[in-house]
C-alpha cells in the first residue's frame, strides 16, 4: 500500500472529492428566478451532505441557516452559498480546532483511554498515537487492556515494537488489572503518556459497557486526575448509528474527544461531524492508512475544504 506520509491532506482531499466532480459541473446555468436557484443550490448541497453521512437533522439545520443568510445578504452566487455552508460547518466544529498535545502542557503521566465498537480501528490508532507521541520526544507506555479478542495483545505488541514504546501486556484476564498495572508503572517510572487499548464492544452490551466503568475507576483510583482523555474511535464509514454509539459510550464514561479512522477511502465521516456537533466534542485525530505514521491532527478547515472541493 503506497501511502505517502505528509501528503495526507491532498490524499484526504482526493478521497473526499472523488465523487464530487460530476456534481459541480452542473452548475453554471443561468437562473432567472432567485427562489428557484436557492432551491437548486440547497438540493445540491443537500446531496453532498447526505451522501457524506451528515444525516437529515444536521443537513437541514445547515441548509436552513445558509438559505436565510443567503437571502438576507441578497447574494446570487453558488460559491457564496458554499462559503456560507462552510462557515456554518466550521462553527459546528469550532471545538475541534484543538492545539497539539505538548509535553510542557500536560500533567504527567497523561492517561489516554481508547474506546469504540468492534473493528473501529482502536488498536491500529493506538499504535499510531504511540508512535506520534514518541516522535514528540515523550516517554510512552501502552496497556493492552483488550484481553478479549483473540490475539489483540499480539497485535498491540507488534505496534509497540514498531513505535519503540513500552507495553504492559494483556496476559492477565482482567482488563482493569492491565490498566492498573500500566498506570502504576507509568507513575513509578515517570512516563509522559499512557495509552490504554480496550476491547471493542457494542454499546448495546451492558456487561461490557460496565467493564469500561471499572477500568476508569481503577485508573482514577490510582491517579485522581486520570484518565485525562477518553477518546471514542469511530470508523469513518459509519452511518447514523454512530450517534447512538457516542451517546451510549458517553453514558458510561466521560468522553473528551473523537478519533475518525479509515478516512483514506471514499467515506466522508459525516456521522462523526454530527457527534462533534451534538455532543460538543472535539475531533482530535484522523486515521488515513495502515502505516504507523498515517495519523493526523484533525483540521476542520482542511476537512471542510476537502469536502467541498470542486
Amino acid at each position, binding site marked *: *500500500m*503506497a501511502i505517502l506520509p505528509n501528503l495526507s491532506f491532498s490524499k484526504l482531499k482526493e*478521497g473526499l472529492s*472523488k*465523487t464530487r466532480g460530476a456534481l459541480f459541473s452542473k452548475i453554471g446555468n443561468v437562473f432567472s428566478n432567485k427562489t428557484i436557484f436557492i432551491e437548486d443550490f440547497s438540493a445540491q448541497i443537500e*446531496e453532498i451532505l*447526505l*451522501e*457524506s*453521512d451528515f*444525516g*437529515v437533522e444536521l443537513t437541514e439545520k445547515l441548509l436552513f441557516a445558509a438559505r436565510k443568510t443567503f437571502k438576507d445578504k441578497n447574494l446570487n452566487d453558488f460559491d457564496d452559498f458554499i462559503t456560507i455552508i462552510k462557515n456554518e460547518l466550521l462553527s459546528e466544529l469550532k471545538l475541534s480546532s484543538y492545539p497539539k498535545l505538548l509535553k510542557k502542557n500536560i500533567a504527567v503521566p497523561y492517561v489516554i483511554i481508547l474506546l469504540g*465498537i*468492534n*473493528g*473501529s*480501528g482502536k488498536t491500529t490508532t493506538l499504535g499510531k498515537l504511540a508512535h506520534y507521541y514518541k516522535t514528540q520526544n515523550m516517554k510512552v507506555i501502552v496497556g493492552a487492556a483488550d484481553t*478479549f*479478542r*483473540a*490475539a*489483540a*495483545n*499480539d*497485535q498491540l*505488541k*507488534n*505496534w509497540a515494537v514498531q513505535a519503540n514504546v513500552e507495553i504492559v501486556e494483556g496476559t492477565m484476564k482482567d482488563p482493569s488489572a492491565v490498566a492498573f498495572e500500566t498506570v502504576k508503572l507509568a507513575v513509578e517510572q515517570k512516563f509522559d503518556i499512557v495509552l490504554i487499548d480496550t476491547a471493542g464492544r*457494542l*454499546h*448495546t*452490551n451492558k456487561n461490557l459497557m460496565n467493564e469500561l466503568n471499572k477500568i476508569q475507576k481503577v485508573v482514577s483510583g490510582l491517579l485522581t486526575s486520570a484518565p485525562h482523555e477518553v477518546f471514542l474511535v469511530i*470508523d469513518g*464509514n*459509519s*452511518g*447514523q*448509528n*454512530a450517534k*447512538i*454509539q457516542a451517546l451510549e459510550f458517553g453514558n458510561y464514561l466521560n468522553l473528551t474527544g473523537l478519533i475518525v479512522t*479509515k478516512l*483514506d*477511502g*471514499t*467515506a*466522508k465521516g*459525516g*456521522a462523526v461531524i454530527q457527534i462533534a456537533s451534538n455532543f460538543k466534542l472535539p475531533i482530535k485525530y484522523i486515521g488515513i492508512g*495502515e502505516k504507523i505514521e498515517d495519523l493526523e491532527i484533525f483540521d476542520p478547515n482542511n476537512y471542510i475544504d476537502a469536502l467541498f472541493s470542486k
Partner: protein
Amino acid sequence: MLDELTEKLERALKKITGQGKITESNISDTLREIRRVLLDADVNYKVAKQFIDNVKEKSLGKEVLTSVTPGQLITKILFDELKELLGRTGSELKLNPSGLTVIMLIGLQGCGKTTFSAKLAKYLKNKKRNVLLVAADVYRPAAIDQLKILGAQISVPVFSIDGSAEPVKISVEALKYAKENGLNTVIIDTAGRLHVDDDMMNEAAEIKSKVNPTETLFVVDSMTGQDAVNSAKAFHEKVDFDGVVLTKLDGDARGGSVLSIRAVVDRPVKFVSLGEKLDSIELFFPERMASRILGKGDVVSLVEKAQLQFDEKETEELEKKFKENRFDLDDFLKQIKMIKKMGSLKSLLAMIPGISSSMKNTDVDDKKLVVVESIIQSMTKDERRNPKILNGSRRKRIAKGSGNSIQDVNRLIKQFEQMHQMMKMLNKNSGKFSIPNIKNMRLN
C-alpha cells in the same frame, strides 16, 4: 429518536386518511417522511430516492379500500417493495456435494471477516463438512494468530505459512493441503482492504482467479453509512462476489446499507452475524431486515402481523363472551395463543407507537405466558369451562402435570377469578367495555 420518526410518519399518514384515492398531492408528505426514515437507516441518498419513486409509482391511483387507510396502504406497499428487493434471489450458500468447496471472504478493514470466517467454519462443521480455515491476512499484525486461536476454539485446522507475505501463494497451497488431507471445505480469510487501493484490490482478484471459489462473500458492517454503495460497487467490479454477509447485527444499527448494496450490485445477503460468540451466525430473512430498516417502532409489522394472525371474528366472539361474563379458561388460553402468534410481548410493546420508551424497557416476561399456558393445558375440558370445580386434589394434579408449583396454579386461578369480578363490575357500569383489541391499535 426512532419513536419520534414513527410519530412523524404517522402524522404525515393521517393527513391522507379519509381520502378515497392515492394522489401525488396527498402522499407527498408521507413520501418525505419515508425518505427520512430510509436516510436515517443509512440507505444511500440516491437509492432512497429511486426507491421512493418506485413506491410512489405503485401507489398512485390506487383505490383505498374501506378497511385500510391510505397511509396503511402506502406503508404496506413500501414494506412489500423492501422485502421484495432484499429477498429477490435465493440466499442459499452453494456447497459442492463432492470435491472441494472454496469460500473466499473479502471486505473493508474491521468489518468482521476473521470472526465471521470462524463462525462459518463452525456452522459448516456442524453440517458435517471437513473444514479448513486459511489465514491469508498477512498485513494486519497478529491477524494470523487471531484466526489460529479461533480455529483452536472450534477444533478446525488453520492453514498458514509462517513468514510468508504472499496471500496468493498461501491460498493456493491451502487448497493443495486440503486435498491431501481429505478436507472438502476451505474458507479463506483475506486481509481487510480499501476499495480504492488498487494494489490490494488486484491482489484479491488474483487470489480469486487462482483458487476459483465456489462462493465469494463480501462482508459488510451493518453500521456502514452512505459509502457502502462505493465500496460494494468497487469490490463487485474488481473482485466480484456472489453474496453478502452482514455483521454486528447484535447492535442497534438499522442496516439500511444492505438495501443500497442490493440496489447497486444486486447480490443477496447469505448470512447475518450477531455477536462475538462463534455460534452467533444466522441465515438471512428479508422480512425481518425490511422491518429493521423501517425502524423498531415499526407500524408496518404490527399492521402486517395483525392482519395475518388476528382473526377478527374470534375477537368479536371473545368480546361477546366477555360482556356476558361467559369468558372461561379456554378462552383465556385462546387469547394467550393469539398474542403469542404475534411475537414476544416485548416486541409487541415496542411496535406500538404510543408506548413510551421507559415502558418499552420494562422487562416483560414471556415465560410467564408459557407457565399460564401449560397450566391451562393440563386441565380437563370441564375444568377449563368451570374453574369452580378445581379443588385441592385437582390443583395438585394440574401442577404436577404441567410441571409447575401448586402456588402457580393457585395464583392463576385467583387471578382469573379477580378478572371475572372485574368484568362483572365493568359490565354493570358501562355497556361499552371491550377487551383490548388489535383494531384499536391502528395508527390512524
